[in-house]
């Protein structure tokens, strides 16, 4: 043991030459590429471009098939309107999928919350703003329950949300008695609940507040995910939970916050859904879960977590919307619409995978 100025002990002798070692960085000449490979490379650098290109392509194709009506600002704004609720759910779903989870209960939470808001305002006479706030609280609570089971009891998200989906659905039926609350009743008692159904005309387009809300939610989530520490933590824990934990992130706390936020976004979606359908309808949106997942994966977010931009699911929802609307305008039979959506899902993700691969 020596004092602070001790002479360093001997290195192994073969290490003595290291001082002279090369410090250049390796560099290699790029190889020749075919056009396809160049395109692949270009897109690889900007993976969010992929869904955008798929979107543009499908708009062009359906425009060609369905005629100029398809391109009208009115029709395009209608598509935006139609995807607004699924888009909001896709935003919530993206958060969960980024953490390498999956939330099968988003649709059920959304409908449950719309029922809660409606019953509070109409049957119990709670002032609408309060009903909305309570609805938000319940949404956060429902998400929090999922998050608790995932983080504390350490159950796989798939199981938790498969179970809670049934639970929320049962609660929905119980609270609503499977009865809708009519549009006219809402107009009288609680017009606030229909707020997001109102629209502003911009040229020929009719943009509902619901559509704007969807865009706003995506914008806020984009900011949170990319420009706050919380967002970086969400990505890190989705990427590799254990590493994230070891590198000093309170992963459980972050994870539970993700589920709560997702629940809250679903609750906002519930409010928006009342505006969209005009009434409080406990039977609507039964397909919403799978549609939201489809939008997320078409949008290029990896089901394994940690990869993908939140802008993707927005585009993904629009692609699904364009497909649905386009197929219907062209007059394709409902049955073959199902068929086409099935292939769309597979092909869109296949293109995405191909882009991400870069060279065989």
């Amino acid at each position, binding site marked *: 043991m020596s004092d602070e100025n001790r002479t360093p002990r001997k290195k192994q002798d073969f290490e003595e030459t290291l001082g002279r070692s090369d410090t250049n960085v390796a560099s290699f000449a790029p190889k020749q590429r075919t056009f396809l490979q160049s395109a692949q490379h270009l897109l690889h650098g900007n993976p969010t471009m992929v869904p955008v290109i798929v979107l543009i392509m499908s708009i062009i194709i359906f425009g060609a098939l369905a005629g100029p009506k398809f391109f009208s600002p009115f029709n395009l704004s209608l598509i935006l309107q139609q995807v607004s609720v699924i888009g909001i759910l896709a935003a919530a779903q993206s958060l969960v999928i980024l953490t390498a989870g999956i939330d099968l209960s988003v649709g059920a939470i959304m409908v449950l919350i719309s029922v809660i808001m409606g019953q509070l305002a109409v049957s119990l006479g709670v002032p609408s703003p309060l009903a909305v706030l309570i609805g938000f609280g319940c949404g956060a609570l429902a998400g929090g329950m999922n998050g608790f089971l995932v983080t504390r009891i350490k159950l796989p998200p798939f199981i938790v949300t498969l179970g809670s989906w049934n639970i929320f659905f049962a609660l929905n039926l119980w609270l609503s008695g*499977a009865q809708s609350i*009519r549009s006219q009743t809402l107009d009288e008692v609680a017009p606030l609940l229909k707020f997001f159904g109102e629209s502003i005309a911009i040229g020929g387009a009719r943009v509902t507040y619901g559509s704007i809300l969807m865009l706003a939610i995506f914008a806020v989530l984009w900011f949170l995910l990319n420009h706050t520490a919380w967002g970086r933590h969400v990505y890190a824990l989705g990427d590799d939970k254990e590493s994230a934990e070891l590198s000093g992130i309170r992963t459980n706390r972050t994870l539970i916050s993700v589920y709560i936020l997702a629940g809250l976004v679903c609750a906002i979606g519930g409010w928006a859904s009342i505006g969209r*359908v005009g009434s409080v309808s406990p039977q*609507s949106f039964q397909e919403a879960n799978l549609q939201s997942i489809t939008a997320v994966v078409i949008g290029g977010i990896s089901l394994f977590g940690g990869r993908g931009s939140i802008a993707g699911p927005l585009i993904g929802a629009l692609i699904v919307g364009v497909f649905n609307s386009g197929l219907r305008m062209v007059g394709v039979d409902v049955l073959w619409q199902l068929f086409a959506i099935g292939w769309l899902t597979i092909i869109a993700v296949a293109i995405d995978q191909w882009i991400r691969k870069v060279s065989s």
Partner: protein
Amino acid sequence: DEIGACLITKTDINPFFVKMKEGATAASLAMNIDLSTYAGKIDGDHETQVQAVESCIASGAKGILITASDTKAIVPVLKKARDAGILVIALDTPLEPIDAADATFATDNFKAGQLIGEWAKAKLGDKAADAKIAMLDLTPSAPSVDVLRDQGFLDGFGVDIKDKNKIGDEDDKRIVGHDVTNGNEEGGRKAMENLLQRDSGINVVYTINEPAAAGAYEALKAFNMEKGVLIVSVDGGCPGVLNVKDGVIGATSQQYPVDMAYKGIEAIRAWADNGTKPENTKGLNFYDTGVNLVTDSPAEGVPSIGVDEGMSRCWG
């Protein structure tokens, strides 16, 4: 003495079946019957109904009331039940063949469709010849109610419906298109929007039920077209009749699920007490619980009742 009975409905998420259940529960209390209720999870959930029938057999019930999801496929298991001495009554939806049940208490769905078809035709008068019709159906798998109401409406409106068992094989130019609504507001709205995009001149809208009609109305309102379009529907639930009153729906065919359930329970009591089976309505091979057209704007030659009477007999 208390006897067991089962009520098996298609789902628990449709107010029609919820009301039917409430009616049956009330009747059972009055008639000292121990009622168990079952339902599929979603529309078309046939397997769950089979399991429900089996559970009823196992529990030794005296009678089964069923609204079948799959009217053909349910027959074998119901035969087992009848073989075990259980009275099987089909509610709302007849089985195929209809005599697979001991009795059928149902709305004539084809007739319900015809009534609104005739009404719409009469309302339009001469303009009916170049009407533009939107058909808002139930699901892609087109269960029998879906077909019967859809085809009944077209028949009533004077369209050549070709195969009575097939939706969408008509080539009448007046039909703008068919779309599915899943029988709820959201589906109704989306389907209406899409059909309007195909042809904005639509002036007659057929809907499978009143929630779908409410959704379609929202879409028309957003297009500022709610004034000039006739919406017709089937069901007669209280919100639906209120919508007729408010002018959302022009006319609706009202059916009586509570009656069906009540009569069904009554029949089971009678069967347990003295072994009598219920009889059919004259001239029909089922007991018609009746259907009435509800509207405040009656059309000549089409029998109807007013909204107030409709309200007094509505079910939800």
